[in-house]
């Protein structure tokens, strides 16, 4: 980890960046995001299997953006990002939320993280996104750290769950999701933690006209969760943060995962994998699937 600290310190000392967004250890199996502006504070920085948060979410926050602007000059921001977090950063660049030139990506050779704080790092406790992860080395970075290590093997239980749901008849499926969504308390933690939910005012906050009923009843919950999933279709990079933070344990990333699979099937597109490929939403191909239409 000395390398990370050294690098971050150097960046701040040379004034190349205004701040470093990173992780610090809070207990043995728990880390927290930290935003460092002073070189000496960099000693707190860590990177390990407990760095769960997708720090890309901070990049779009106004408070953080302000850090990049001092005395009417703009500075870079450095961010420590797992290879999967880099996908989110790529998506944000493509959606014009951040400038590639204005961020300094410190990334790592990653071999997976735990599914939640407090667990031991092994195959059983591997975060579900790491099971199918194909980018153990980041696709874009300015500094690459860490050594290459084997990722533990684990069963792709999420995919099995999707398959299982797909086997249910429609009414059962509906009932399943209705009861799952019914648990929603509209805390919007999923929205807060999602790096791609950067809208200043979310669709659900728009009340004239009212797009999604905000009170926490079945119908409103259903609409919210469907539209949340739809808005992320073809954009979600699969970081799985929404799932982790949901206090009601709604299987949000299951739907996201399903839509990612569909995006790949229908349009051979996975979000956040390339800066050059046009985004799925906002582009089209004359030869897109036309089967749906009579």
């Amino acid at each position: 980890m000395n390398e990370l600290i050294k690098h971050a310190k150097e960046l701040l000392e040379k004034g190349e960046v205004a701040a470093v967004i990173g992780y610090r250890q809070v207990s043995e199996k728990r880390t927290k995001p930290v935003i460092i502006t002073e070189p000496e504070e960099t000693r707190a920085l860590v990177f390990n299997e407990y760095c769960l948060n997708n720090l890309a979410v901070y990049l779009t926050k106004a408070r953080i953006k302000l850090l990049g602007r001092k005395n009417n000059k703009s500075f870079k921001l450095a961010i420590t990002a797992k290879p999967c977090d880099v996908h989110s950063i790529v998506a944000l660049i493509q959606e014009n939320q951040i400038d590639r030139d204005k961020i300094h990506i410190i990334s790592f050779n990653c071999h997976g993280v735990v599914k939640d704080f407090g667990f031991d790092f092994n195959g059983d406790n591997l975060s579900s996104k790491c099971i199918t992860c194909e980018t153990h080395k980041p696709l874009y970075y300015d500094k690459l750290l860490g050594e290459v290590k084997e990722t533990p093997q684990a069963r792709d239980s999420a995919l099995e769950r999707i398959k299982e749901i797909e086997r249910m008849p429609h009414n059962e499926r509906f009932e399943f999701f209705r009861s799952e969504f019914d648990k929603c308390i509209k805390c919007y933690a999923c929205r807060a933690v999602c790096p791609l939910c950067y809208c200043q005012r979310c669709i659900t906050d728009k009340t004239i006209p009212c797009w999604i009923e905000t009170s926490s009843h079945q119908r409103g919950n259903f609409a919210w969760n469907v539209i949340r999933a739809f808005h992320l279709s073809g954009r979600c990079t699969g970081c799985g943060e929404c799932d982790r933070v949901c206090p009601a344990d709604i299987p949000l990333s299951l739907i996201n995962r399903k839509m990612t699979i569909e995006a790949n099937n229908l349009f051979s597109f996975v979000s956040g994998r390339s800066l050059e490929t046009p985004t799925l939403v906002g582009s089209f191909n004359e030869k897109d699937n036309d089967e749906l239409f009579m």
Partner: protein
Amino acid sequence: MKIGVFVCHCGENISSTVDCLRVADLCKSYSGVEYSVDYKYMCSDPGQKLIKEAIHKYDLDAIVVGSCSPHMHERTFRNAAVSAGINPFMVEIANLREHCSWVHDEIEASTRKAIELMRMAIEKVKRDKPLTKINVPVTKRVLVIGGGIAGIQAALDTANAGYEVVLVEKEPSIGGHMSQLSETFPTLDCSQCILTPRMVEVHQHPRIKLMTYSEVERVEGFIGNFKVTIRKKARHINEENCSGCGLCITKCPIKKKAYNSFEEDLAFRPAVYVPFPQAIPNIPVIDETVCTYYKTGKCGMCLKVCDREAIDFGQKDTIHVADVGAIIVATGYKLYNIEKKSEDSIYKGYGEYGYGKYRDILDGLQFERIASASGPTSGEIKRPSDGRVPKKLAFIQCVGSRDDSKGISYCSKICCMYTAKQAMLYRHKVHDGEAYIFYMDIRAGGKMYEEFVRRAIEEDKVKYIRGRVSRIYEENGKYIVKGEDTIAGMPVEIDADMVVLATAMIPQDDAGSLARKIGIPYDKYGFFNEAHPKLRPVESTTAGIFLAGACQSPKDIPESVSMASAAASKAIILFANDTLEREPVVAKVNEDICAGCFYCMKVCPFGAVEVKDVKDMNGIVYKEVAYINQGVCQGCGTCTATCLSKSIELAGFNNEEIFAEIAAL
């Protein structure tokens, strides 16, 4: 808000299956409805008067009319509302005729549906906002793309009306396909004789800026305000110095390296050439691909002989920008090539007719050149292979046309006529020759057309055989044409000396890419789409862009000319005002909540979305938001549905109004 409801009987068209009285009565009970009435003919003068009086009497803010489709009378009722002092966009139409009374039999069901339709309209009108039309300035100059007969006509008409014209032609000369024709049906007058004066007129017209050997690169902007980028290809001849003496052409040592495309590859041309003697402008072009100078750096014969120093080997393409208010597209057609181009082409070619393997199998334009007095044979009908006069000629119609398997399902429309004409010309020139025409149907709709075909049969003894030809092959210098006379029910084999294929008219190769450049839709073949097949045949769906001639569908000369004049008059109508009124159905961004993802910019088909910087008190940009140019926006609303934060609303169809309609179900 006070709403007036008017239910029209449309004679009995609506009232026969919808109980109009009940509808009107019920509407009275809805909140906000101040006045509700039914009447026999709302669109009639008394009907409109009724509306106007009701607006005054009950002090109405908005009206709902239950009548025919808004595409029919929305404008009528809006005008009535305006004359009574209501904003025209406070009028909603419920389509009780086309969508209800005419399509349902049962009175109860259709009355119920009518009530619901009315309720939806009432709920919508409650949320309607007064809108004002948008005014945009108009640049009174027109761009004509294509210098064939359609383009020439359109340019002349607009210029004669007093407006400036930029005429862009990709070939070195204007004139198009018409200049290649020998004689024209049904009058048999010489094509060039009637065309050349027009070409000269274009050249000399003070208001027409002629740009030959040029292509449109880019079109930006919108109706009244297009900005066009044109690439003028290097001729390697200084146009100002050149006097058109033609000495360079005669002295050019490269005589037989390039086919003459004007002669449909039946002859050669030098490396420096004008396409044909009457070319406008009469300025040659040096073909870099064959010229020795560009290969070896030597020769320069033309340079030596030109005493006006017009030869400029170093000339480069130049880019010109023009501001125009309207565009007339007249890019014309090309002929189907029976040679197979590639596996993935939709045009499969005719292997059974010998793929251009045999030199005496010609297409329609090649025969025109052979029959033309200025053509490679000086008008004598001769076989390209050996120069013999063919004594037996077979014409085959519908080659490519009406053939799903070869890529074209449509009828090319003109082939029946020009084949009859060509057979006639042949019989006039070769008195002892026999002419056979294989056809499927004769489509001779037009003034004097049927008579013309009959003349070919009755006076010139052209033999018409109904049946498609299956194969052509060579045997002892003759071409065996295997057909079936489907009327006699007998197989037919003709040993022709020459075969002329009436190949289909297809769009130019670059029609699709041009359409994308200027932003107009085209059909699956590549013909440009008109705004309405019947009522707006010369307008494209993009405002301010008009169509003329065969780029829209196969056409003969009179049709192309009349379409060109129609397109010109559309442009002139546009220029009659200094500013342009546009429907205010445009999208608008709420800048406060726009997140600046610019998905709207990606989906906008018209490039109406711009980036706008939002600055803080210190004048520092703190966020970028989308801004929609009201002049460019066409009001499709694709951005509104794409916008994730719902920061865009489409005036006239905003989300609140649509939600109200859904809620009224």
